């Protein structure tokens, strides 16, 4: 090869290298396509704009549902393993819940970090608050022989309704407010409030259900109460809201503390006469019989909460200091998914769910614990104030509202 040929050869090699570089840079660059009429650029070099899934991949990337297989690749033709599938679907669920929550529209991305930021609505009289419910607009609190209606927007007390006997559980159902009432071993009662009416004495809706109804639920037709009784022979009562016909069932039940309808099944937290006989019981709503008895949910379960998939079972009585999460639906119904004990839990009682988070009141610890319902991870435990006695809670979809018995108030969380 003479000098001229060498120069020619080098020039050819140089041009070739430039062509290769241009080609590679073209292939490796981020791709830009059009989605919804707008120019869209992805960092992935293996998703050409001609890919029919270009915009779907863009949306998944922008929403944080995927980060790709590397900073510059998505590997669109790779198959998805079941472990990757779990990540995809759980991120999708999280994103939908997080963005779809009303707190997102309000820009409320914070969580209170101290008792001092919890604004209080104080009550006069004895500190006898027992239960709290949100009707979609206002809050209703049963306390002693009265029910308070509170504006969930500004915390202002709007109305006071009264009854002659001690009020316990309260529920918003069928356009009305129903309140259970107990008077020693006498039959329990249910009072009803028409929210449109002027406040005053409540109307008796039912006066001969089982003694000592502590909690109440609704299955779309019937109210159901968990009747504790002090004798250890408890019961549950069913009251048809349309006809007022009631039935009380006691077979297989000892000390029902709570009752819950999950949309398909009726559940009872039975504290039992001794710790070993208590448990979570699934009830046949047709006849009140016990269909299943789950004993591995912690000692003497007392409060229940449903989050759309699982039941959260709190145990404070009989030395119980735990929290169990039990699958409520599907083939794994009754399976204990997680058993929390100790830690920041200290006397767990009332609970509430806001569509994303579960709040547990720690009565003895004067705190509330937050959990992410989707993966059962703790989100923190926050003080509600020294000796405040957080007892029950509800959610209005934006805020949790907590009864602090010892402070004789409710607070917005």
């Amino acid at each position, binding site marked *: 090869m003479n000098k001229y040929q060498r120069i020619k050869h080098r020039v050819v090699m140089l041009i070739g290298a430039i062509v290769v570089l241009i080609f590679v840079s073209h292939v490796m660059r981020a791709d830009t396509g059009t989605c*919804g009429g707008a120019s869209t650029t992805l960092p992935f070099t293996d998703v050409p704009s001609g890919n029919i899934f270009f915009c779907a991949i863009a*949306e998944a990337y*922008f*929403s944080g549902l995927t980060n790709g297989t590397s900073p510059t690749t998505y590997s669109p033709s790779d198959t998805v393993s079941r472990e990757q599938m779990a990540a995809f679907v759980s*991120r*999708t669920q999280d994103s939908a819940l997080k*963005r779809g929550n009303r707190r997102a*529209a*309000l820009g409320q991305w914070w969580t209170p970090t101290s008792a001092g930021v919890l604004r209080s609505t104080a009550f006069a009289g004895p500190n006898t608050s027992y239960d709290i419910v949100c009707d979609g607009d206002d809050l209703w609190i049963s306390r002693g022989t009265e029910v308070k209606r509170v504006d969930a927007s500004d915390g202002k007390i709007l109305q006071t309704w009264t009854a002659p006997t001690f009020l316990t559980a309260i529920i918003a159902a069928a356009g009305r407010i129903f309140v259970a009432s107990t008077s020693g071993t006498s039959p329990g009662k249910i009072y009803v409030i028409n929210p449109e009416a002027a406040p005053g004495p409540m109307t008796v809706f039912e006066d001969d259900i089982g003694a000592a109804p502590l909690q109440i639920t609704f299955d779309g037709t019937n109210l159901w109460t968990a009747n504790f009784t002090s004798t250890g022979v408890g019961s549950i009562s069913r009251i048809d809201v349309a006809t007022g016909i009631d039935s009380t069932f006691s077979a297989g039940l000892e000390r029902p503390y709570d009752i819950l309808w999950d949309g398909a099944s009726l559940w009872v937290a039975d504290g039992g006469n001794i710790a070993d006989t208590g448990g979570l019981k699934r009830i046949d709503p047709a006849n009140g019989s016990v269909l299943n008895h789950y004993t591995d949910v912690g000692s003497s379960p007392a409060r229940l909460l449903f989050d759309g998939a699982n039941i959260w079972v709190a145990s404070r009585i009989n030395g119980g200091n735990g929290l169990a999460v039990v699958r409520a639906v599907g083939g794994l119904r009754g399976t204990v998914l997680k058993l929390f004990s100790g830690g920041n839990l200290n006397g767990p009682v009332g609970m509430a769910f806001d569509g994303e988070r579960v709040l547990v009141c720690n009565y003895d610890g004067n705190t509330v614990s937050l959990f992410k319902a989707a993966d059962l991870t703790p989100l923190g435990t926050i003080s509600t104030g020294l000796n405040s006695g957080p007892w029950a809670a509800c959610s209005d979809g934006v805020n949790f509202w907590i009864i602090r018995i010892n402070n004789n108030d409710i607070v917005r969380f």
Partner: protein
Amino acid sequence: MNHGRQIKHRALLLVAAAVVLTMASRWIQAETGTCGGLATTLPFTDVSTSNIFFCSIAQAYFSGLTNGTTATTYSPTQSVPREQMAAFITRTQDSALRRGSRRAAAGMWATPQHVGLVNTTNIGVGAFNCFDGTDVWVPISATGQVIRVLTSAGGLTPDIWTGATSAHNTIFAGGFIFVTGRETPGKIYKINPSSGGSTVQTVENNVGAQPVSITYDGLNLWTANNGGGPGLGSITSYNIVTGLESTFDIGFNQPAGIVFDGTHLWVVDGGDDALYRVNPANGAILETIDMDNIISDVAIPVFDGSNVWVPVSHALKVVSTSTPARLLGTLTGNGLGSNNLAAAFDGERIMVTNNSGSTVSLWKASSLTPLGNLNLGVDLFLRGVCSDGLYFWIVANNLAGPGGFIMRF
């Protein structure tokens, strides 16, 4: 073949054809199974009723999460490539957000296409508003008033608070309404919404100069303080329990907006043309994302659960809050103008006010795609915007005309 054999042969062929046709019709027929106690028919011939996922596939089809691999096949045993998975999960997310929205329950599928369809209420010359879960609160800078607007009726409550000099921006936190006073030094006013209209309480009068934006981290209010000029800006934290305040100016030039994402603060700095990730524990800058054309006066960002949206001049910047942060896109057009001021999120859509163009622009948060824009009039000088989950509420000011009002979009 004699005649008898021919007839026999034809008969056999006919029977065979009938058998084949019967089998074929059985194979290609749509399958009907039972889901939730109801007969359910799928167009897919390859999903048998005995498939344990029959009802899941039916739900995915009926919800529009999948259309199958052809009009009559679902290919249930095929593996899913990652590109198809992206389609599955984004459709799932979109469907959940769309159906889970309050607008779905209210049957509000329409977006106003004409300004005449946007309800307006006169309130005075307002600034940057907020929603408390029931009502909207609007600060009126010139008069020092804070107005409460009923979202259900669009009308005003009789409750009007006074004494909020230079009232500029609002937030609902800890059960109270807090309002920034855009003065030097800056102020923070407090309103107890259950007390009825009265004079606001001044809870802090030593905030950094010219607080233009406010957010909350669960304990502290944080203000972005414009400072009134380059290099004079800062951010201030105000503990709503103890009343202690701290002002941080290291690294800040001229903050124009601030938002909390549940973990970090994000500060829009118009002087530095940057978005800062800030540690709420000490006000220190953790990360800098370069931007351009940030309006130095006011630029109110919003967080959508994944990303921070920052209005800038002639564009809208979208930044992922992952670590490290990534600029996902610079959006243009769709009604954006030279003076985009504030952004709001309703769970599904982002709205941005274009101050000088009197236009609002809508964006789909999950895909960053434009959903359209609407010009609300002439010289309306749009400012704040917030969402109640059902409507967007926009503050507009026509100084040469009827004055200020709030618009329900």
